[in-house]
């Protein structure tokens, strides 16, 4: 049977269309996914992201362990509550998962990893953590909600005491803090301001309903995907996986090669790839014609089908199709995309396409 989050019954009661997502029964939309998308760009929306795996790491050597485990360097985290985005690589430099790591204190870091990769991630992490005497604690007692949009922070703060609310509004970008049994972080996956909130599982439905009463719109995974793609954010399994490496996936900025003596898993392989020259790159594509680019469609560069769409959709903000693609490094300003047997010209652009409600690419 499919897995369910603590909010499953509420989604069904709200009339959501439920779909399988990485083994989880999740809401794809409650009504119109385009209206949900616009609600996040203009006001505030709420997403159930409880299918993601929250995992606490405890131990005296937890920082040392994560400097070995992750391609980004947790030494960039020096202030309690600060978060970092990183890939977790295999020895070949392939991406096992992408994740967020929070620095809580010197004996405690918190990871948030993807739903569909939970099992393999934990199987990868546990034996390696044991070598550093780090304890891995899965937090299935927590539910996670993402409240996103220009009004999102105010709507959530409206439910807190004035003291906690003021403190939550003080959180800088990519910072989180504990408020009694809640953990509130100023993070997200939409290109808008907002919070991701971890709360005890049995209180999640009540929080959701109270946010609905504040005018925060219930949003499904459909809107989450169009929002993240407009924001130029990768999706694990689409835009990178174990057979691709960060340097050809638009994620070179997340690999900390300095300091040179930090020996993280995958480093040796990436250094070889870098020395040999990276043949492919990730680009954003914008289509002028009335068609929609989709994952796995071939991208034709200089007459050769040498690239591939890794994520493609219709952008509700731009009313055009947008995509992320992996193409030869030599690709210029325009390419062609093979959409259902017909070639369409696409412009190469630098993601993000949309941030904070505004188009960042000229149409």
């Amino acid at each position, binding site marked *: 049977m499919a897995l369910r989050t603590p909010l499953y019954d509420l989604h069904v009661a709200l009339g959501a269309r439920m779909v399988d997502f990485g083994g989880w029964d999740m809401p794809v939309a409650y009504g119109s996914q385009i209206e949900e998308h616009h609600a996040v760009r203009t006001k505030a929306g709420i997403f159930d992201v409880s299918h993601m795996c929250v995992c606490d790491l405890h131990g005296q050597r937890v920082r040392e362990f994560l400097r070995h485990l992750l391609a980004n360097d947790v030494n960039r985290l020096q202030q309690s509550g600060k978060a970092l985005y990183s890939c977790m690589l295999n020895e070949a430099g392939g991406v096992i998962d992408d994740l967020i790591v929070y620095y809580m204190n010197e004996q405690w870091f918190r990871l948030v990893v993807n739903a569909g990769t939970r099992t393999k991630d934990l199987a990868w992490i546990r034996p390696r953590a044991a070598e550093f005497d780090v304890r891995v604690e899965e937090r299935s007692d927590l539910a996670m909600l993402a409240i996103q949009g220009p009004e999102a922070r105010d709507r959530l703060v409206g439910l807190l005491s004035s003291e906690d609310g003021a403190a939550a509004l003080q959180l800088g970008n990519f910072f989180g803090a504990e408020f009694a049994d809640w953990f509130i972080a100023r993070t997200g996956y939409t290109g808008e301001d907002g919070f991701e909130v971890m709360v005890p599982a049995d209180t999640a439905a009540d929080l959701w309903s109270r946010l609905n009463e504040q005018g925060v719109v219930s949003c499904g995974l459909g809107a989450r995907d169009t929002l993240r793609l407009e924001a130029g954010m990768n999706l694990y399994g689409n835009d990178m996986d174990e057979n691709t490496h960060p340097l050809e996936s638009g994620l070179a900025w997340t690999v900390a090669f300095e300091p040179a003596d930090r020996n993280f898993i995958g480093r040796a392989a990436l250094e070889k790839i870098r020395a040999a020259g990276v043949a492919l790159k990730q680009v954003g594509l914008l289509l002028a014609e009335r068609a929609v680019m989709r994952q796995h469609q071939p991208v034709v560069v200089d007459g050769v089908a040498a690239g591939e769409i890794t994520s493609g*959709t219709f952008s509700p903000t731009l009313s055009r199709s947008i995509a992320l693609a992996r193409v030869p490094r030599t690709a210029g300003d325009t390419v062609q995309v093979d959409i259902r047997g017909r070639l369409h010209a696409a412009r190469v652009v630098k993601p993000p396409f949309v941030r904070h409600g505004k188009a960042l690419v000229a149409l």
Partner: protein
Amino acid sequence: MSNVPQDRLYARSHEWVRELADGTIELGITDHAQHALGDLVFVEVPEVGREVAAGGACAVVESVKAASDVYSPIAGTVVAVNEQLAAAPEQINQDPYGAGWIMRLKATAPLAGAGLLSPAEYASVLASN
């Protein structure tokens, strides 16, 4: 639950047809189909005058999620297309049996022999899915 009006016939591939007063056949996709596709963003309709074969692809409806062919359950000639769908594809989501019609055909044979499903038969196809 999906709406299945009584005043028309259905195909297993989730199109509906109905005979208009002038004898032409209007074609669209069902409420079930629009719901499964999600928000439509583009609709590609055929040229007026095009011949379509029974069971042949005659239009494309594209949602945020996926592109799908629309099949004509009957053979005929396209005599009109819903021009409004170019600017407002969401009409198919909002009113699949009315303002969301896709095209009108002059059929080459009567509907009766086309192997179409009655409303009750189509409803039971949906129920068994």
